[in-house]
């Protein structure tokens, strides 16, 4: 499959310590967004192609064909594959997390909105006045020498299908499974399925919601290192695909391409379970900025 531009491209800019950090971050943020909204990660495209090949229901197969064609058209025309370029979340991991990074990201989003362009999606929640695109930044401290920035631009169709369940500890694994399956059965059809399901178990309520979304940074083919979670992911994936929501909620073999779980310790009296559904347009991209100025995108 010929792809333009290649997704793993290495760029050399001036070392971030020498030139203005804010400028470097702005360029990286814009580039991340550009690549993310135009082309899907390879693993997602492969999963969609497999879903198409295996589908037996006509209405699902026809729509999966359009989805695959659409990915090609967006790549060829270098335009956003879906008009909803989403609410933009950045995940930044590094040693020295400064306000220059924040400023650079805001600059980059402003430039991306104008140049790519992105759809201006952010509004005041009550007056509904449009203010362009307001990104959200999540920070994580790491010991690595490089700075890592990931982006998830996520549309409202799937984001609106998010949920948090504060279960009782005695509900246990069965309760978790029931809450998730019931939610997906009722809500997935509006999230442009086949979906990618992100689940956060445990933690505080806000941590569970964040973990649910962070799952979408993982490759669909990645393995969960926790055997209990890996087993639950596999079971849920099988069961969700038995629900028959199918492509766009009109039936079919594939409702979900993947299920991913992140878990944290929680209060002895709590069992938070958060659900974050990604649509088939599962857009994500990461950049690593090294000390010598080298930048890798993957």
């Amino acid at each position, binding site marked *: 499959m010929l792809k333009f531009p290649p997704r793993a491209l290495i760029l050399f800019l001036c070392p971030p310590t020498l030139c203005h950090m804010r400028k470097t971050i702005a360029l990286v943020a814009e580039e991340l967004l550009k690549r993310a909204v135009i082309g899907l990660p390879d693993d997602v495209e492969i999963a969609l192609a497999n879903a198409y090949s295996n589908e037996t229901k006509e*209405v699902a197969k*026809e*729509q999966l064909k*359009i*989805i695959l*064609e*659409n990915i090609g*058209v*967006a790549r060829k*025309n270098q*335009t*956003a*594959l*879906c*008009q*909803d*370029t989403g609410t933009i979340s950045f995940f930044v991991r590094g040693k020295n997390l400064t306000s220059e990074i924040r400023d650079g990201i805001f600059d980059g989003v402003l430039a991306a909105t104008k140049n790519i*362009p*992105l*759809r*201006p*999606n952010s*509004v005041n929640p009550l007056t*509904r*006045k*449009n203010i362009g695109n307001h990104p959200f930044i999540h920070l994580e401290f790491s010991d690595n020498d490089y700075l890592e920035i990931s982006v998830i631009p996520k*549309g*409202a*169709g799937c984001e*609106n299908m998010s949920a948090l369940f504060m279960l009782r500890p005695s509900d246990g694994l*069965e309760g978790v499974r*029931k809450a998730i*399956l*019931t939610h997906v*059965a009722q809500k997935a*059809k*509006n999230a*442009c399925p086949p979906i990618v399901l992100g689940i956060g178990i445990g933690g505080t309520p806000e941590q569970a919601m964040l973990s649910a979304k962070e799952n979408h940074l993982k490759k669909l083919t990645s393995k969960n290192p926790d055997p209990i979670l890996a087993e639950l992911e596999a079971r849920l994936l099988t*069961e969700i695909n*038995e*629900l*028959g*929501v*199918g492509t*766009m*909620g*009109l*039936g079919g073999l594939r409702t979900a391409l993947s299920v991913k779980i992140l878990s944290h310790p929680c209060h002895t009296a709590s069992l938070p379970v958060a659900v974050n559904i990604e*649509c*088939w*347009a599962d857009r994500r991209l990461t950049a690593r900025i090294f000390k010598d100025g080298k930048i890798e995108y993957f």
Partner: protein
Amino acid sequence: MKHLLKAPISKEQVLEFKLNDIIYLSGKVFSIRDQAMKRILDEEKSIHELEGAMIYNCGPLARKNGQKWDLLSAGPTTSSRMNDLAVEFIKKFKVHAIIGKGGMNTKVLDAMKGKCVYLSAVGGSGAISANQLKILDVEWLDLGMPEAFWKLDANNFGPLIVTMDAHGNSLYDKNDLEVDANLQRVLAIK
């Protein structure tokens, strides 16, 4: 059955559509969603052009190029957000088709009886749709790009699947029933 249609479509044509029919549409289509629908109804605007119109629930991504607008990506948006607004809209403007994704509820299905159909575009297929649609005009940009009132010219816009017909049948309802039965079966396994 596959239909190549030119808007405006007549009421007789609307009544003939069957679930699973595939439509490629040409002619005038209006992109209206939450805020524009609300403004039209709240302010009791009577917009002559909307009589018997094809409404597209979409929030396009467009770029202004001199005096004209280029459409860059324009797939459907989730129609169920507009369930309540749509019922009033169908009554007031005798809209002949609503195009969107995800389907609408039974109140809308009832309101559509004898006069209107719901057509599903493939969610997320913005790049393809942008090649099939052109911007004729836009109003109410103060609502923001996604929520403005876009007048579009369609050229074989599709595939659009008839998922709710004018006789009270909905493919979504049918599938929802199957999904619910499947859910009960899956949950019964411990």
